[in-house]
């Protein structure tokens, strides 16, 4: 016992000594350092593993294939946040000191962490890219110069889903008198679509019933029995983690057709459907990006990265979230490229990257050149519109894979824009921000 106790004392002393050296090694100079606040453990570890797997695989491919961005090599480090806000802040603070040019841009991949580091990012001049999550009203870049909800936000998704349902019903006019249930994760995330869906219900005349599922959502008997009794025409699934798979499974249990269920993009990956098994077949989900391996960029990654044994988990390649992570990396890299056009071919700082994102324009031709083809919609970011696309596309689970079930489409963008500006203006007033575009 005595020796063990000595070991323990040694351990504690060693930790104290090691602590004084925090944060340790800096990154090698001359590279474009990208800080990644990721998560691969915990309840959402599977989602994180796919997203950040795609993210780092793309960065590795850029280094292998092109030798970096205009000759500037990329380097990166991933810090584990466990999807925990406090740990996210620690990771953010650690990564920001790792390189003279900062962490380029941060993808928190968690709405909670986005909120926690939002103010800090403004002071530190580090852009946040929130691909399909985070603050919806940050789309108004005049109030949130440092936050980029790139592609589409939750309100685009919600109105897009309503539009999709309208099309399935044979036109938006047919929605009148229809019954739609929103089954949502009872949290900040699940509450996001409420205002916009309520506005849509009023406008289009459908009946909306919102049913919350308490975290974690691995038991939904009572919710689905209510749905069975209510007999809605459609169910919108606003799920995250185990809740989505359980919803599909329980829908089967109560005999609700999955072809009448539409998820949002965090409830629409292989992780959600595989776990539900055959119960998921026929289920639709809004998506920010297409799934699948049939894109030149995926082939490049397989040839240049996986063939050399430098990739991550090969099973994840081509899945919805892996492709999304890759898209997120591409947007970061292209922002760096854009910034280099203006500031020179050397590692660029957060402030310069911010300019790069805000002036990013990836039309269909450019997407094709990058090897993404139709995986993503054309993107044009501006100070007014930090989203740059607002489009969603629907995919359907065939039982083995996600198949595209619609074209790129836009929801009620006028309504969304109006609500974003109202919300952003309220935030600006609370915080004493003077909205405007930096020149």
């Amino acid at each position, binding site marked *: 016992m005595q020796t*063990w106790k000595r070991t323990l004392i040694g351990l504690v002393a060693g930790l104290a000594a090691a*602590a004084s050296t925090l944060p340790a090694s800096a990154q090698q100079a001359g590279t474009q350092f990208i800080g990644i606040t990721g998560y691969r453990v915990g309840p959402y570890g599977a989602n994180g593993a796919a997203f950040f797997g795609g993210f780092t695989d793309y960065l590795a491919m850029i280094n292998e294939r092109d030798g970096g961005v205009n000759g500037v090599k990329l380097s990166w480090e991933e810090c584990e946040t466990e999807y925990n806000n406090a740990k996210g802040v620690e990771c953010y603070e650690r990564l920001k000191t790792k390189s003279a040019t900062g962490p380029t841009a941060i993808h928190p991949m968690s*709405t909670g962490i986005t909120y*926690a580091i939002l103010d800090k990012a403004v002071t530190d001049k580090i852009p946040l890219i929130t691909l399909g999550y985070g603050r919806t009203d940050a789309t108004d870049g005049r109030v949130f110069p440092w936050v980029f909800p790139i592609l589409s936000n939750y309100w685009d998704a919600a109105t897009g889903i309503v539009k999709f349902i309208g099309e399935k019903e044979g036109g938006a006019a047919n929605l009148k008198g229809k019954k739609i249930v929103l089954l949502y994760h009872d*949290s*900040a995330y699940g509450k996001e679509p409420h205002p916009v869906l309520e506005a849509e219900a009023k406008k289009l005349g459908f009946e909306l019933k919102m049913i919350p599922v308490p975290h974690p959502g691995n038991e939904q008997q009572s919710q689905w029995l209510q749905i069975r009794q209510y007999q809605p025409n459609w169910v919108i699934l606003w799920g995250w983690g185990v809740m989505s798979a359980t919803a599909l499974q329980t829908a089967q249990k109560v005999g609700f057709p999955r072809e009448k269920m539409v998820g949002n993009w965090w409830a629409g990956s292989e992780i959600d459907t595989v776990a539900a098994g055959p119960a998921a077949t026929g289920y639709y989900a809004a998506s920010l990006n297409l799934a699948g391996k049939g894109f030149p960029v995926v082939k490049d990654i397989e040839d240049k990265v996986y063939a050399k044994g430098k990739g991550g988990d090969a099973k994840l390649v081509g899945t919805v979230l892996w492709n999304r992570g890759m898209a997120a990396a591409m947007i970061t890299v292209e922002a760096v490229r854009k910034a280099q056009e203006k500031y020179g071919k050397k590692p660029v700082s957060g402030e310069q990257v911010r300019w790069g994102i805000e002036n990013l324009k990836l039309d269909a031709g450019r997407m094709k050149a990058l090897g993404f083809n139709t995986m993503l919609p054309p993107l044009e970011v501006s100070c007014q519109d930090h989203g740059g696309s607002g489009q969603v596309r629907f995919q359907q689970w065939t039982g083995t894979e996600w198949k595209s079930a619609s074209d790129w489409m836009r929801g009620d963008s006028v309504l969304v824009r109006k609500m974003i500006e109202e919300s952003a203006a309220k935030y600006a007033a609370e915080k004493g921000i003077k909205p405007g575009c930096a020149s």
Partner: protein
Amino acid sequence: MLYRESGQFKTSYAADQQLFPILQDRAAVLALLAFALVGVPLVATDYWFTAILMPFLVFSLATLGLNILTGYAGQLSLGTAAFMAVGAVAAYNFQLRVPGIPILVSFMLGGLSAAAVGVLFGLPSLRIKGFYLAVATLAAQFFIPWLLVKVSWFSNHSASGVITAQPVVIAGFAFDTPVRKYLLVLVIVAVMALAAKNMVRSRVGRAWMAVRDMDVAASVIGIRIMQTKLIAFAVSSFYCGVAGALYAFAYLGSVEPDGFNLDLSFRILFMVIIGGVGSILGSFLGAAFITLLPILLEVILTDVTAMTGIALPPGFISMAQLVVFGALIIFFLIVEPHGLARLWQIGKEKLRLWPFPH
């Protein structure tokens, strides 16, 4: 030799009753405080302030709160994070809705709100004991964040239920940089820790310990069980509430009620156990240990793999960290179940004899 209290004669009751009756203790506490107030701001970087010192201080305060309840009064609680949430949201609302209210008063009122809620959920402790009580406090842990999300008034009707804390300004002085925030939190934590130190040796504190050691015996010698337990809940929740307010205002800036989850409660309970049940110093040691350990593990594992160039499967480090953390906790509990405070005590005894041990 170094830590010898013989020869320190007390000639008045006042001298005998002071908070740190031993000269070396007094000197050490003063030196530590002086270092934290002056030395640390000179050497520490922003990373240290925001990512390590701030959570360390805030969690120390919460740990202190739980330690009062669990360590001194013997009532196990798993609802710490919920009381922190009450403190944070209450402070936010006082600041928002009462014009011109000083922020420190908001913190106080946040703590008092938490205390009121704490007393409410402490009522069952009059009948339930031990693990049944622990699981019963889970009711608070699940109910309170639910209520805070559900009633949008609490978050000033923000769409997502997230509250963004107001800037901290005291008498026209803005606490906006990491150093300033650190100093503010440090002062609050130091004052409250000393108050706790004083409280646990007072009549109330002694009553707590009597109830903890054997409640039936305590009631036989005339201690009012109900009053004692409820005071413990109130004081403990007050500390947690203030910690929650600081967590929101000084540390994170904006918080969502769901962030105050069971994991956080467990983490704080860990800090109490690792630091030492029933020890003020232990609360700080435990908070430091649990805050630093995962960060260090990750940094060490990342650096080791980077240096040796071993290509590990992605995510391995994250999981290895979990494994090592779990194993270390078990190892720690086996080797020193009384926590870091006990190690410190052993160290002091050694110092008393050093350099001539027998």
